[in-house]
């Protein structure tokens, strides 16, 4: 059976056009309505987030886990409150200040210890130094704020990212992919990048308490010499000829577990200007 054919007349077409126009106006009205509602929601949400950040600022700043989750929330919304200082969000949330300050402290510590370690500092050492400085800062504030904010490695990573824009070579470099422990490289020689061999030397030195000697790595002389020479030139390694076994040892002062920075508050003119002669037992006990 043939389907019945319908012929569309003038009136039908007109009516269709009219209806389409009506739909269009209705739709645009609806879209506008939705948009307004969404915008309103956004404003409300923004307000809420702001209020939350303001209200719980201390918790956000002091509680690492909460901060991480809060930041994840911001990230999921496409908001990165720390990297763009000029963005509305950073001003709204008032957290970027804290990271900028943290970044400033990181840079200060890295630069003050650069003569020692060639710019390479253990993340744990850096974190302890940061914590100490924050604690000192808190000491001058009201008693309720006496409890310093706990800095996590995550925070340092974020703070260092804010420094990256300075193009001074501040960067977190992992010398051992497997482990979390990393090194921070300050702008000692602009952009330092390590070859795999150099990383292996540093990794080995870290594992043995900061020093390494020829026997520690079964390499050919050329390979060994090239890596050591570059690390010496960068000021990361120091030569030590005084070992009792007569072997020349190389020390990476930035990789000694308890570094100078640990005991000495950073001063502008370098660590040597203040003496707090606490003996470093960990170094003495690890000597050959």
């Amino acid at each position: 059976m043939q389907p019945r054919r319908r012929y569309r007349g003038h009136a039908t077409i007109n009516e269709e056009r009219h209806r389409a126009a009506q739909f269009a106006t209705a739709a645009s009205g609806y879209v506008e309505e939705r948009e307004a509602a969404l915008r309103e929601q956004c404003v409300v949400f923004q307000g809420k987030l702001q209020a939350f950040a303001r209200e719980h600022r201390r918790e956000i700043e002091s509680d690492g886990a909460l901060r991480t989750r809060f930041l994840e929330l911001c990230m999921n919304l496409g908001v990165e409150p720390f990297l763009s200082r000029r963005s509305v969000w950073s001003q709204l949330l008032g957290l970027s200040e804290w990271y900028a300050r943290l970044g400033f402290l990181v840079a200060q510590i890295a630069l003050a210890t650069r003569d020692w370690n060639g710019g390479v500092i253990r993340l744990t050492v850096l974190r302890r130094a940061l914590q100490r400085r924050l604690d000192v800062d808190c000491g001058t504030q009201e008693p309720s704020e006496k409890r310093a904010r706990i800095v996590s490695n995550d925070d340092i990573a974020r703070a260092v990212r804010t420094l990256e824009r300075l193009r001074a070579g501040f960067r977190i470099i992992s010398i051992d992919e497997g482990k979390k422990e990393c090194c921070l490289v300050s702008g000692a020689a602009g952009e330092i990048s390590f070859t795999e061999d150099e990383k292996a030397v540093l990794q080995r030195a870290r594992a043995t308490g900061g020093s390494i000697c020829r026997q520690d790595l079964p390499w050919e002389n050329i390979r060994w010499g090239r890596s050591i020479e570059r690390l010496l030139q960068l000021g990361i390694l120091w030569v030590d000829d005084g070992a009792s076994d007569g072997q020349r040892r190389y020390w990476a002062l930035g990789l000694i577990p308890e570094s100078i920075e640990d005991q000495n508050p950073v001063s502008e003119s370098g660590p040597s200007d203040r003496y707090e002669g606490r003996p470093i037992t960990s170094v003495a006990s690890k000597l050959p």
Partner: protein
Amino acid sequence: MLIRTTPVQETGNHQPKTEPASFAFPPWHQYPPLYTIQPCARTRERQLYLWRRLILDYCEHFWILTLRLYDAESPQMPLFCNRAIQRRLSRSALQCIFQELVLSGDAAWSNPEEKEELLIFWRSPRLWADELLRVVAQYGQNKGGVFTLPELASMLGERCSLGRQQRAQALQTAIPIAFLEHILELLAAQGKARVFSTNEGRGVKFDFS
């Protein structure tokens, strides 16, 4: 039974009287590579700076005005050797560091040919010269006063106000003659003092207002 620790044998003439432990060494004194002169120029510069600062602080603490290379080498001198980590500065390393002190103006050889005894200026020679003039003026001897060098040395040692706190613990309070001569040279250049030799020894005549 009482157990007594034997006092440290004093070998040099400027050994500190108090126990060496009363001086707080900087943390890097525990770092083994600091006792080897570094081959890399930038690191060495830093290293020499640290030693220079430490020597000046140490000498000021114990009111030491002269250092002899021979004494510096002896294990009695805790400044240049660290038993805890079994490291010490070798003679060549010491010479390098002393040379750095001289080049930076913080010290001078008492005899530049011999290079054995070092005069340490933890206060600049200018300050010492001003101090000497002040002491001489206190005695009213600034116009034509005549002193022998040992006389002047003990006088300055007694009345000197530089490093007064440190001097309370110091063994030797008299100013070494070589040190005094260096200061007098400075004053002679300004025309405020004149060193002369007689058959009884050397003397100095002051003339300043």
